[in-house]
Structure formats: C-alpha cells, structure tokens
C-alpha cells in the first residue's frame, strides 16, 4: 500500500491537476470577459420595446425595461417582505432630469406596450419616449393619428436633415471666407498685446494691418451678406419644421425635427426593421462624431486617433529597436557592459507607464517641443504649437515605452538566425554589414514583427501616459485631413482607451453611458486584434519564405 502511495506521488497527478486547473481558470476568465463585453457591447444598439407603466398614484411612465431584481425588505415589525424591483429607462431628460427610475411591482397598477409609442433619438438631452401629436412643416399641420402621421413625420425629418446639411455647408463657406480676415485680426490682437505695440514702429505696423483688415472686410462684405442671409433663411426654415410629442402623462413638448437623429416605433416593428435600425446605429457609432459629451453618437475620431497614434508609434519604435538590437547582438563585444545594457533595457519594460508619460511631458513637450516653438513658430508664441501635448509626442512617448519589447523580440529573432547561414555569408566574402542586411535581417524579420505585434498590443491599450501627452476628451479636428500639410503632428487627438475612461467615469450621466463603455471596449479590442492580425499575416508569409528560422 505504501508503495502505491509513493508511486502516486511520483507520478504527481495532483500537481498536474492543479496546473490544469490554473489553466482552466485563466481561460475561463478570458472567455467570460470577452462574453460580457460582447453581449453588453453589442446589445446596446438594439432598439428595445417600450412599456407604458401606470402607477397607483396616477403618474405614468413610458420607457425601456432595463433590469429587474428581487430585494428583501424588513418592515417595522421585523417581518421580511419580498419585493420585485425593476429599472425603467424613461429618457426625456429635459423633463424628468434623470434617465432611469427604479419602481416596485407593487406600485404598478397597469402595464401595456402601446404600438403607437415612439422612441426619438435627439442630438441633445438623449432619448425621448412618447407619442406623436402633431407634425408641422411650415404652415402645414398634420394631427390625425395613424400611419399618415408617421409618414408625414418621416417626410418632415428628411426635409429637416437636408436643410441641416445645407446650413452646415453654408457655415463652412462662411468660415472659409472669413479665414484670412480672422488670421489678420489675430495678428493685430497679438501685436496689441506685445510690448512692441508701444514703439513707434509697432504703431505704424498696427495701423497698416488695421487698414489691410478694413480693406479685406470691404471686399468680402457682399459675399458675406449673401451667405449670412442664406444661413438665416435656412435656420428659420428649420425652426418651422416641428414635431409635437406628448409624454405618458400627456405633457406636450415641441421638438425641432433638425434636432432629431432618428425616430421609430419599436413596439410595432418587425425583427428585420429593428435589425436595420441596429445596423444604422452601429454604423453611426463607428463612423460618426460623438455627441452629448461623448455619451452618444459615434467614436470615429477616437478610432482614428488610436490607429494613427499606433502607426506613428510603430514607425518610430521599429527602426530604433531593430538598430539597437542589431548593435547589441551583432557588433558589440559581449561583456559586462553589454550585459548591463541588456539588463537595463529589460528593466525599462517594467517601468510604470505613467513614468514614461511624465518623461514625455518633460522631455518631448517642454524641452523638444518648446525649442521647436522658439525656433520655428516664434510668431505664434505665447500660444504653443509643439510645446503642448499632441499626437506626435504621445506616439513618441509610447514608442519609448514599447522600445524594450521590440529590442528583446528582435534580439531573439537575431539569435534564431542559424549560425551556419551567417558563417556561409561571411565565408563568401560578405562584410559584416552585408551579412546582416542580406541574411540576418530577412531571417529575423518574423521576430521583428513579433516585437511589433507585442508593441502594438501594449501601446494601443495604454492610457495613462497619453493623458499627459496629448489625449483630449473631444478633439475638434483629426490628425490627418485635407488641409496642408495633411498630417498634423501637433494636434491633440482622441483615443479609445481614454474614451472609455472619460465616458465611463467622467461623463455627467454615467448610468446612461455605461453600455457605451462596453461598446467602446469591444471596439478597442477589435482594433487591437485587427492591427495584430495584419502583422501576423505578414509574419506568416515571411515565415513561409524563411522556413529555416524558428520565429
């Protein structure tokens, strides 16, 4: 018997079991996280049915059912009562001042799903749940309930949206028209503020500039008048396309159609119709700009910022990392010094990311950026150009952060190049550099790409260092656009990781924004996976080409 036990110990079955349990738990948690993010993130956009709830105290609410739970309450006599509670999203923030209420079943006297209930997504104040009463297009009024009313409302909505687009275009024209004048006026203001203004020369220049400004003003006055009139007319036109809605309790509210993103009647919609709305909302999320302090609308600027930042980071980190690794591995004489350097590089990977952020702020922004401003953009000072956070500095900070990853992976890739191949190249009369370029680097490319993949994974998810090197809650412009020089490295940018933090914890309406957090997290994961897949695709192609190497 004793022998058996010792054999059991020898085999170590219990340890194998413990090890496999560890694996199962880790895998389970990963799957669980992904499932939670997937379900919560993807279900957010599905148009939910609305319920009309009438309460004992004669008040009534229309809204979406979100959550329900059972609570036990102890009353004054010490008896335990079971209570069913549910959360209703009632929207209409402008009327109720809050988006959600908790109700108990006992309070409810009547519950129904009225088919004519509409859900209206507005540009401001979130959703409105209610009933359509009246559609006004200019002097025309429609108020017979029924399908025609909905059709008229849709017609009015299309008209309002078209007008809204024209307003935006006109505004842009107006801005373009005013741009030179605005620049001139800015120059005048800066001159007035500077000590130069007190000198005679300064006064003279100021007078010249002012004269120039007056001239410009006159020359664009006509066009400005026409555009302005057009703008006024369109704005007025949109003010006359009005939807009157009523809440569950009958309070009426007027909404401009131009302020409505979309509206639908969820209780009478079929599955495919809902799917269509779902697809539209998903597209809006990916392709549009955020509204309502980021809690609604899309996250396109954040996606764009994340991708551009990761690309800039890769462009910066790969050459430096590869060069460093090549020197360490191929040229430097291996010894204590090199061992120390290698150790330092590895330790760099363990430095908290916020430290890198502080370094980026101190070195890149204040030292480098400040000097650039003094040498090249001194006319704009004290307003900083590069001396403030921007996408370039954030990318470089992250490049520094991910440098060790690339160095280590590249070194491993270099080590994996068969010695025989290196010797073969040297024996054919190749110089060391020719050997590295023609034999070692192509062979090590898969390893370098592994480094890049790791760097992307680490860099794309990093938020802390970005917060002090250039990320903002809402960036008015993208880092790449149609205006010269197309790539604006000095601009601030939005980032999905920061977006999650901002929406989830800094927005005025955290409860309503919660699903947005999951959706944004999902998107961030998707983007990191996509960027990785691209790199993995190239790595596999290279691997096929250089079968000799193990990376």
């Amino acid at each position: 018997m004793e022998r058996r036990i010792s054999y059991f110990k020898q085999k170590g079955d219990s340890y194998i079991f413990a090890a496999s349990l560890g694996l199962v738990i880790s895998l389970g948690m990963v799957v669980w996280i992904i499932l939670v993010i997937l379900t919560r993130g993807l279900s957010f956009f599905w148009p939910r049915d609305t319920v009309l709830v009438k309460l004992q105290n004669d008040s009534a609410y229309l809204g979406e059912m979100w959550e329900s739970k059972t609570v036990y309450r102890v009353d004054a006599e010490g008896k335990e009562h079971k209570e069913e509670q549910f959360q209703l999203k009632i929207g209409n923030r402008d009327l109720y001042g809050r988006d959600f209420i908790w109700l108990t079943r006992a309070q409810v006297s009547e519950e129904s799903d009225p088919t004519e209930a509409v859900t209206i997504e507005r540009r401001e104040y979130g959703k409105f749940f209610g009933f359509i009463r009246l559609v006004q297009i200019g002097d025309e009024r429609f108020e017979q309930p029924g399908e025609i009313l909905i059709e008229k409302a849709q017609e009015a909505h299309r008209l309002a949206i078209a007008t809204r687009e024209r307003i935006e275009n006109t505004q842009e024209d107006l801005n373009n028209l005013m741009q030179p004048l605005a620049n001139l006026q800015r120059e005048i203001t800066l001159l007035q503020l500077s000590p130069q203004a007190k000198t005679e020369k300064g006064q003279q220049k100021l007078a010249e500039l002012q004269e120039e400004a007056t001239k410009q003003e006159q020359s664009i006055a006509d066009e400005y008048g026409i555009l302005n009139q057009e703008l006024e007319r369109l704005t007025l036109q949109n003010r006359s396309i009005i939807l009157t809605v009523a809440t569950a309790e009958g309070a009426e509210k007027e909404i401009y159609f131009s302020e409505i993103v979309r509206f639908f009647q969820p209780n009478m919609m079929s599955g495919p119709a809902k799917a269509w709305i779902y697809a539209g909302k998903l597209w809006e999320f990916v392709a549009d700009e955020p509204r309502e302090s980021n809690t609604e609308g899309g996250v396109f600027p954040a996606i764009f910022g994340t991708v551009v930042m990761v690309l800039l980071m890769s462009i910066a980190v790969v050459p430096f990392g590869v060069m460093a690794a090549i020197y360490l591995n191929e040229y430097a004489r291996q010894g204590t010094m090199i061992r120390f350097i290698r150790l330092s590089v590895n330790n760099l990977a363990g430095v908290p990311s916020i430290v890198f952020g502080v370094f980026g702020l101190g070195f890149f922004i204040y030292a480098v950026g400040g000097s650039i401003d003094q040498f090249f953009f001194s006319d704009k000072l004290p307003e900083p150009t590069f001396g403030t956070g921007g996408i370039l500095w954030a990318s470089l900070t992250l490049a520094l952060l991910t440098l060790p990853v690339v160095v280590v992976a590249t070194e491993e890739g270099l080590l994996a190049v068969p010695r025989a191949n290196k010797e073969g190249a040297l024996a054919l009369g190749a110089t060391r550099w020719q050997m590295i370029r023609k034999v070692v680097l192509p062979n090590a490319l898969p390893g370098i790409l592994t480094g890049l993949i790791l760097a992307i994974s680490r860099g794309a998810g990093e938020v802390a260092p970005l917060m002090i090197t250039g990320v903002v809650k809402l960036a008015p412009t993208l880092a790449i656009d149609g205006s010269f020089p197309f790539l604006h490295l000095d601009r601030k940018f939005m980032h999905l990781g920061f977006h999650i933090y901002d929406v989830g914890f800094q927005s005025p309406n955290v409860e309503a924004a919660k699903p947005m957090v999951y959706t944004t997290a999902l998107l961030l994961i998707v983007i990191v996976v996509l960027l990785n897949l691209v790199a993995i695709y190239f790595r596999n192609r290279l691997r096929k080409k250089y079968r000799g190497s193990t990376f």
Partner: protein
Amino acid sequence: MEMLQKDMEMMADTAHPEIPAEFFALAGEKIVIETTDLDFYYSAESHALKKVNIRIPYRKVTAFIGPSGCGKSTLLRCFNRMNDLIPGSFLKGKVLIEGEDIYKNGIRLEELRKKVGMVFQKSNPFPMSVWENVAFGPRVNGITNKSELEEMVESSLKQADLWKEIKDRLQASALDLSGGQQQRLCIARTLANKPDIILMDEPASALDPISTGKIEETINELKEEYTIVIVTHNMQQAGRISDYTAFMMLGEMVEFDTTKKIFTNPKEKMTEDYITGRFG
C-alpha cells in the same frame, strides 16, 4: 628502410632546402598554404592547435584526417580566418597563403575569403532562390551586371554538376532541394566567387552514399582547377579522393605524406593504428 629514409632526407636537403624533412613528399610541388608553428587557443585554457607546420600543394586534394576533436576543422578554419568569429580565441605563429601572411594587419578579410572559399559540414543554403544563392558571392563582391551574373551562375552550377538537374528551377527556393543538391549548391556558391582554394569541412558527412558519391565526383573534377583542402572522418573517402593526407591527433600534426604512403606504409605507429581502426 633506414637507408631509404636517409636517402630521402638527403634528397630533400639538397634539392629543396626550404622544405622541412617531413614534407619531402612534396618535392616538385608548388606550395600554396604554409603554416609555421601555428598555435591556436579557443581560450587561454583551451589549446586547440599545437605548433602545427603544414604545406598544402597547388591544385591537389589534401585531406585532414584524425579523431574527433583533434583540431583538423580548427586548422581548416585558420586558412580563411573563420576562427576570428569566436570570441576570446587567439592565434600564434604564421599562416602564409601564396606567400602572404594572412594574419598581418591590413589584410582585408573579404578579399581573403573570396580567394579562399569554404564549404561547410552542414549544407547552409540561404533562404532565397537557387539563383540568388549562387549569385550571392559575386553580388556582395560588387558585380551587378545581370548578364555577367547569369553567366557566372550557369558556369558555377555546371562545375558543381548541378546545372542539368535544376536549370529549370533556378527561381525555386534553395530550401526545396534535396540534401545532396543543397550541398552541391553550396559548392557552386563557393565556385561563383572564382576562388583559388576551396576548404571543405566534412562536406559529405551528412549525406547518403549516393549523394556522397556525387560530391566526390565533383571534387575529382574540381581539382584540375582548384587547390582543395578537405577535412573528413571517412577514411575510405580520404583514400579515394585525396592526393596528400595529413594525420592529426590532439592538436598536433602527426604525419603528412602522399595518401598512398599514409594508407599503405605510414611512418608513425599512431597513424597506422588509426588507419587500421585500432582506435578513433
């Protein structure tokens, strides 16, 4: 026997005063590689070659034989300074190739290695196409003319007896060739540099008998134009292909003579024991 030896020593002394006694067999040959008291250390503790003196004749096949670890590969690698790559190693003594000390300052390693080509034990084609493999040497040595390269590739592959087999697959990856073809490709790659001397470090040890036969055939053809130094573990192979043989033991050169002599009537007892398989 004693008479004969004395006779020969006398001959060596009178006819070729510069050739030491142990190389009297080389009388009449032009010497290409010459070492004097060559010591090689992998590190201060590891003394791999001990006072090695050797002469390698022009356009002949010279084989190095000896048990594992006797320093024959190390000696071979001294001739194109591949040992330089080993950190901590150092060398004493002289290696002259065509009369020039290759360890003196100012020697360009690339020039030396172009002149003294090397084929390794394990075939090491680069992960490129066959054509690019063969053109590698000429390219790194500055030849860019496409037609010149084409010509070099073709003639090198022909010399290595590979042209007929793979002339239609020049753009295929060299890694797709068979083991024997890969090794002959490595020979062709070395030939493309138009070397004077080819060093071969057990070129057939990883190959099957048929591929080995082909490599030996190739070597037989090549010795018309090249000086070949080959390290081999295979006694029969040394007997079949080499003109001269050097027997090494524990870092020392024990005996050097014509292959025939070494295999039939060696001077040293140790050589005889090794050849007849009493140890090793």
